[in-house]
């Protein structure tokens, strides 16, 4: 037998686990009894009607094929393609996230550079950070008076903390030697910030950004279930109300896939700014 590389063996194992898992799932779904096999009583109590149950994987795959072959159709408020729904969610996540980055990274820089600012802001951060982002929702809805903007605000408030804390931590931890190099070369404050401190702290900052985008994607699903209208979170809840579990399972998988892609994008950014000492 030819020896396989580590990656090949891992891939083989993954495929085996997937196939076995799907087969077990398929086999675990009780088959619908044919009408002929039912007793009269069962038929009279509606036993012949199709039962709502967890769908087998084959049905989910068929649904996935159907949805993904036409992802951008729009047939009214309650019937939009999965691509449109995911598009709305990504748009909300990115707008809230970018606003958070614009606030958190400069503020984190300030906190990291100044021990006074750190001590002064620390109590606020410690109190605000553990608040579940959805707890802000009623207040946001009341103040902003717009469900769309409130969802974006919730994303903003949940993504700001990891970026803020990591930026401050990264900036504060820049080696004094590198700062001394900047000082002995008479670099100004702004030049030092951009040419020495930013690249030195970049790996820590990007780690914070990666954590933030992960949290934002977790939160958007819940936020959209609350605000409704559009988005993947709304889609899941809507399909639950339709009792279409096939679509629910399919959209759960899509949430996972999109989350993975967002994470992969930040992982590659992380590699780009990494350096070895």
């Amino acid at each position, binding site marked *: 037998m030819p020896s396989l590389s580590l990656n090949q063996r891992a891939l083989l194992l993954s495929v085996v686990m997937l196939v076995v898992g799907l087969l077990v799932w398929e086999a675990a779904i009780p088959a619908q009894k044919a009408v002929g096999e039912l007793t009269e009583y069962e038929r009279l109590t509606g036993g012949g009607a199709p039962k709502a149950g967890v769908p087998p994987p084959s049905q989910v795959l068929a649904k996935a094929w159907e949805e993904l072959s036409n992802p951008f159709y729009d047939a009214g408020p309650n019937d939009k393609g999965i691509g449109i729904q995911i598009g709305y969610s990504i748009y909300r996540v990115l707008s809230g996230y970018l606003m958070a980055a614009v606030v958190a990274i400069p503020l984190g820089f300030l906190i990291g550079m100044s021990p006074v600012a750190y001590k002064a802001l620390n109590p606020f951060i410690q109190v605000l950070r553990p608040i579940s982002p959805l707890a802000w929702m009623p207040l946001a809805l009341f103040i902003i008076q717009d469900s769309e903007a409130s969802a974006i605000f919730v994303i903003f408030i949940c993504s700001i903390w990891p970026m803020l804390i990591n930026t401050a931590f990264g900036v504060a931890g820049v080696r004094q030697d590198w700062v001394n190099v900047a000082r002995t*070369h008479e670099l100004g404050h702004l030049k030092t910030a951009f040419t020495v401190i930013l690249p030195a702290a970049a790996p820590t900052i990007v780690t914070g950004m990666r954590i933030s985008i992960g949290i934002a994607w977790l939160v958007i699903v819940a936020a959209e279930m609350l605000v409704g209208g559009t988005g993947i979170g709304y889609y899941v809840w809507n399909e639950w109300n339709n009792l279409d579990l096939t679509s629910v399972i399919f959209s759960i998988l899509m949430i996972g896939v999109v989350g993975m892609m967002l994470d992969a994008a930040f992982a590659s950014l992380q590699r780009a700014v990494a350096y*070895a000492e």
Partner: protein
Amino acid sequence: MTKPFLSIENLTQTYPDGQGGTMTVFGNATFGVEKGEFVCILGHSGCGKSTIMNILAGLAEPTSGVVVMDGREVSGPSLDRGVVFQNYSLLPWLSTLKNVSFGVAARHPEWSKAEVLEHSRKYLAMVGLEGDVIHRKPSQLSGGMRQRVSIARAFANHPKLLLLDEPFGALDALTRGTIQDELLKIWGDSGQTVFMITHDIDEAILLADRILLMTNGPFARVAESVEITIPRPRNRTAIVEHPNYYAIRNHLVQFLGKRSKELAGQASDGATQSPETVRIDLTDAADEPTPEPRLRAVNT
């Protein structure tokens, strides 16, 4: 008396000792360095050598006293004082070439990008770094190569004063020898004023015009200024044959081994602490009126 090029006047450094009082690292240290001179400072750990270095670099403020260079008081870091740090202090996210060129660009903001790169390459070549190596990141270089980059970065900026903080401390003996030779060569070509900290007696004798000896802390002081009466150009294998070599070396070993302890712990009471000049020269004893007492002092 004219002031030397670099004049350290009544430099005092104290730190709080953690019990409400203060601990004096060194008090009223006073010495000078002439233009174009290569001066090494030797002393035990904790005597404040690095503190003096940081004050000269402008990275630290002394408790009292002033440093005057070229007629102007030193305050804050400046491109006129280049520093080679013990741990190289290269920026790990920049390539070797960029590590040098960012310094050159800071020194000569009016230069074009091509001029900056050309100048940087020239100085990297002087320390033997050419070709693909200069596009590598510092993490892909050996310790010796990293210190070469650091030296190239410092020399490329033509500072008026070059400060070397134990530049070869982390290198193995063979690499150290090679880079010492390169340092001597590049220094010989540039005529730069150099102030260097070292722990290595042989290194100090090979490189320096003058060695400053520090007593142990606290209340450390620069006790002696030993002239190295061995003609240049020097060569590591040839200088050990020179009659003055072991006389000087013995003097230094005696000082560091014994007298640095005996002289330690004396408060200066505000008096200026200038080093005593020591000249050991066995080659022309006739020119030296009193070489014997010095040598006797060495041997006691």
